[in-house]
């Protein structure tokens, strides 16, 4: 190579090195908050966590959040029971009837709905359910969470079901299976592991949703007697405690954050593990 090219190449090599260093620095900057949050939540959370956290309700004496833990689990289960079947049915429809005008419109709606701030979902559920029933309720909160889940489940099911090769569908149809049997026994079964992971990620996501609960499930210092009573949740309790100037409550908020992060991270990691194991196999 001539000297001119040599020096040009030396410059390009330095540029490449610099770009790699810069992108590595970006990674460090991006992951530093993750580490910091985990450390803070772990250290401060463990310090404040006690047995009574899981046994006493907020309204009783002692540091308890049992009703909030129960409320979060209750709402998420209820929301999953509403959102997941509906989402899978809808997603399967989108994939199996992908060229109908309805399917295209709904796919677009799912994209839009996924981008709508969840607090507006809360506003809508407030207008439809809370105003109608004249009170905040666990049911209203679960409905709001189900709506937040819905586009996530629909999109995951749609994408994964569409990834099932058409040759499998044709094989089933050629054996005389009807379209709906093909969809359920061939398409859904083939895509099931991925859909399961997708649903777990959706559940993890709504475990942390706070905004849509503020004026649907609202809050409650005690265990709720029925699904039509206001309900406390970990999320809302953390938010409330963060905003109040009381050291004890701040400590409680850190403990609740630890529990919430643990739930979310376990679900997240588990969901990814399932998918990865499938990929390896």
């Amino acid at each position, binding site marked *: 190579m001539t000297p001119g090219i040599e020096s040009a190449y030396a410059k390009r090599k330095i540029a490449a090195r610099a770009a790699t260093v810069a992108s590595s620095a970006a990674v460090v900057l991006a992951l530093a908050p993750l580490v910091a949050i985990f450390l803070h939540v772990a250290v401060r959370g463990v310090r404040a966590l006690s047995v009574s956290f899981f046994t006493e309700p907020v309204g009783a004496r002692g540091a308890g959040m049992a009703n909030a833990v129960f409320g979060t689990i209750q709402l998420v289960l209820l929301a999953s029971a509403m959102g997941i079947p509906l989402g899978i*049915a809808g997603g399967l429809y989108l994939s199996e009837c992908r060229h109908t005008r309805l399917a295209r419109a709904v796919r677009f709606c799912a994209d839009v709905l996924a981008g709508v701030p969840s607090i507006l979902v809360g506003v809508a559920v407030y207008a439809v359910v809370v105003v109608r029933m004249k009170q905040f309720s666990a049911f209203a909160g679960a409905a709001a969470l189900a709506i937040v889940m819905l586009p996530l489940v629909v999109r995951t099911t749609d994408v994964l079901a569409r990834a099932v090769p058409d040759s499998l569908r044709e094989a089933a149809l050629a054996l005389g299976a*009807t379209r709906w049997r093909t969809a359920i026994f061939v398409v859904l079964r083939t895509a099931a592991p991925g859909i399961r992971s997708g649903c777990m990620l959706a559940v993890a996501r709504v475990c942390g949703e706070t905004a849509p609960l503020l004026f649907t499930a609202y809050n409650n210092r005690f265990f709720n007697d029925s699904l039509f009573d206001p309900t406390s949740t970990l999320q809302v309790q953390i938010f409330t405690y963060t905003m109040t100037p009381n050291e004890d409550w701040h400590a409680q908020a850190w403990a609740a954050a630890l529990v919430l992060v643990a739930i979310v991270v376990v679900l997240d990691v588990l969901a990814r593990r399932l998918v990865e194991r499938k990929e390896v196999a």
Partner: protein
Amino acid sequence: MTPSALPSSSREAPRALRITDAARGSGDRVFGAVGAVAAGFLGLVLVTVAVCVVHLAWPSIRETGLSFFGTSAWDPARDVYGALAFVWGTAMTSVVALCLAVPIGLGVAVFLTDLGPRPLRRPVSSLVELLAAIPSVVYGLWAAFVVAPLLRSSIEPALAAIGGPLFRGPPMGVGILCASIVLAIMVLPTIATVSRDVLAAVPSELREGALALGATSWDVVRLVVVPHARRGLFGAVLLGFGRAVGETIAVATVIGSRADVSLSLFAPGYTMSSVIANEFPSATSDLHVAALAEVGLLLFVVTVAFNVAARLLVRGERYGRALTVPAGNR
């Protein structure tokens, strides 16, 4: 196919055939109907959200009209409502957040697709996605008790030394800057992962073509990958912006909750989503509820617009790829 070949090729086939022969037609119709209803429900939900927000906001829209967004006077005690401060706060926090998150997010994306050491790419990718899994309320807690004190004690005084209209006023910790930093951390995974997918969708033939001409890894990114992915990257940024605008709880904890229009990043402010979160549960007068809903309506319009634009850009990228890859190769 000979008759004897059927049972041996699929043991279950005869049974399935018997059932479906009877159910054919009606079964398909039921399946189609159930699926269509489930899918249609999603559209219904979206329409319901829009209708509800407009319905709740109607009294305020009728009362104040467009001037609602022209004034920053917000006083529920006197039933006076103007949303300018919230629009301003949302714009400020989102723009500052993107200024921080876009360079870092794109850097992470390029690391994940081209520049990073291969064994690190997958774990880093998972960790970035984990960042997106942390609940908003936990970000808020962390920001209020870790980031804000840090800003107040050291970072804001240091920035104040630089001066200028952006860094003016007493260091408070909570305020526009704190909210922007948390927002940046929260939208970073969106920008990074969508950009990563967009960059990864650039055909490997193009990368190899450049490498075979003697390009360095950075040359490949600069001259081939980024120009090819420009639209999609822009879409990723828009998606990040949409998320920043809509993010509620974390912002509500550290924004400072004051309906002011100020250029200083140190000043407390308010955003559209956080005012709804803070005031909607306790709003008593009908006009207060309506005014908050009108803020929500603008929030809805803005986030939908950004998301639709972003999806079109990111999806256009995918279609573009489908057109350049001839079928039947490989």
